């Protein structure tokens, strides 16, 4: 009740400051994403490299539990590739006919395997901080992909006089500048199958593309359909306007 009272007080403008998280961070600079704009699409090579970064780096702490391996078919992965990617993880299944749980290799219909069994285990392994699920991450942050890219490349030494708490890291774009996640990307941290040099910027770019797709897998279809629908409605509306003029002409 006390908590609800506090919220209400804040909501009613009684001058209670609730959260230090509200402190400002600069807006992350806008990037020229290929998926921006009404015709933008996800670059397939960026996506593939981004998946590599997610699987090798992010996936050790962050789940992606709304995305299935089979969803990768939507961005050009072949059935065989998807089977291989899914089979790389062990998932718990069951109970079987004997009533026992068993583990098996992942299948395309499985969701991306979560690194921890439950939130408590996730906190225990991360110094008490909870690594958020990344399934809708670009929709869930102000600034979307730009913010994510800024965050991943925004680890700096704190300015003079800024006190970073024990176990926290300084980040230019994180609200309040203190983030529990240590800099996840390091030069050469992953080996890209296509031979691209894995700089921090490259990895941040690729994994942001991948997570943007994970957040909005429908985006390409949405934009394609939108253009067609709007063109049809535009023509139809123009015709209706002509018809309206014609019908009303009888009145004047």
């Amino acid at each position, binding site marked *: 009740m006390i908590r609800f009272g506090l919220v209400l007080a804040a909501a009613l403008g009684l001058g209670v400051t609730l959260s230090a998280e509200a402190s400002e961070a600069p807006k992350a600079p806008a990037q020229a994403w290929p998926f921006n704009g009404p015709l933008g699409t996800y670059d397939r090579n960026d996506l593939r490299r981004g998946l590599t970064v997610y699987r090798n780096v992010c996936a050790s702490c962050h789940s992606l539990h709304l995305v299935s391996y089979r969803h990768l078919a939507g961005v050009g992965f072949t059935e065989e590739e998807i089977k291989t990617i899914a089979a790389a993880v062990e998932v718990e299944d069951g109970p079987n006919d004997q009533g026992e749980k068993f583990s098996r290799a992942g299948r395309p219909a499985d969701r991306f395997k979560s690194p921890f069994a439950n939130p408590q285990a996730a906190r225990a392994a991360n110094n008490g901080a909870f690594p958020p699920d990344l399934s809708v991450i670009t929709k869930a942050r102000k600034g979307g992909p730009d913010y994510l890219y800024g965050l991943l490349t925004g680890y700096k030494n704190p300015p003079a006089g800024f006190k970073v708490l024990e176990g926290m890291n300084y980040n230019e774009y994180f609200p309040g500048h203190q983030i529990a996640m240590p800099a996840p990307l390091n030069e050469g941290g992953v080996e890209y199958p296509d031979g691209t040099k894995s700089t921090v910027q490259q990895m941040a770019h690729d994994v942001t593309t991948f997570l943007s797709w994970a957040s909005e897998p429908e985006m390409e279809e949405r934009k394609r359909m939108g253009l067609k629908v709007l063109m049809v409605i535009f023509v139809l509306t123009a015709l209706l306007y002509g018809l309206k003029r014609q*019908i009303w002409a009888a*009145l004047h």
Partner: protein
Amino acid sequence: MTPAPVWKNPIVRWIDYRLPVFSFIHHQLVDYPTPRNLSYWWNFGSLSGIVLVIMVMTGIVLAMSYTPHVDHAFDSVERIMRDVNYGWLIRYVHMNGASAFFVCVYIHLFRGLYYGSYKAPREILWIVGIVILLTMMATAFMGYVLPWGQMSFWAATVITNLFSAIPLIGEPIVAWLWGGFSIDNPTLNRFFALHYLLPFVILGLVFVHLWALHIHKSNNPVGVETKSAREEIPFHPYYTIKDLFGLGVLLFFFLCFVFFAPNMFVEPDNYIPANPLVTPAHIVPEWYLMPFYAILRAITFDIWFIPAKLIGVIAMFSSIVILMLLPWLDTSPVRSARYRPIYKQVYWIFFADCLVLGYIGASPPEGWYIPIGQIATAYYFGHFLIVMPLLGIFERPLPVPESITAAMGMPKEAGR
């Protein structure tokens, strides 16, 4: 009223003799007499009705795949987005449809304010309209809660807590609304049930609204009643085609948002699953409730023994209820602002005041935002309680044309 045509089709004739649906449709939608001078501002009533139908249809389909449970609601919405065929389209239409609905209804309402459509004999028509607005707000609020994101949860917290301001019985009422001692699964379940029910209540109210409308027919930009048959035109084809064209324009803009900026009106926080332990930095409702939220927060002081919170809640509800009294608060006999030189300006000041309130509602309650919100709130009530009654007495209206045809510069009736 012209007599219904003799139906040629024997089946139609058979049915119509027993249940005159065809004659009813003919009288209410085909030869229904409408003033010939309605401007495009008169499109927004029918547009609101169409958006309501779109909301009901998409909502029913969404309900087939939605799970009203605190553990599954958020994921089930995302499942609709990912795994249901065209689920993303249905959901984005529904989500942005709420905004489109309020855009249409607010334009419709401000059109009524400008042309004095609430004046005798259309007071009940107007009051039913305000009741529709209130029901829409309740429906929209509960719909906002269903995805069970952070804003859903905390908006539900703030709004249900308003009722705790009621003296003595406030706390028990809040527990009763919640179905427990905190916002939890029972709350989500009942909000879903009510969110499904209320749109049908709105449909019923819309029927009453149209019933009242069809008694004295539409007001018009001149604000004088139609006096001869030549000032009226049949609804079909003249207004059916005009409404269809308007619908095309609305759909074009609406679908621009659906397809290219579907999350424009959503707080990113609502894509974070609800967490009772983490309070978002700023709890804000959807844009269409901002002005009322600003009025709620404007009251930061107790009056005698009445706590600020209670006054805020009363002010917020009063800001809508006061609209129902407008037919009596406006003392001017002239309907249309066209012939009310001072009201015409006061109208735009009031409109600007509502925009200021909306801006304040979206801003954090700190610094200059607080006094500005208070002044804007005072003006909101002053407009209705002081300006409108006095204006009718002191304003000298321009000469009002004796008829619509006179206003349109048409020659005098030459017999018909």
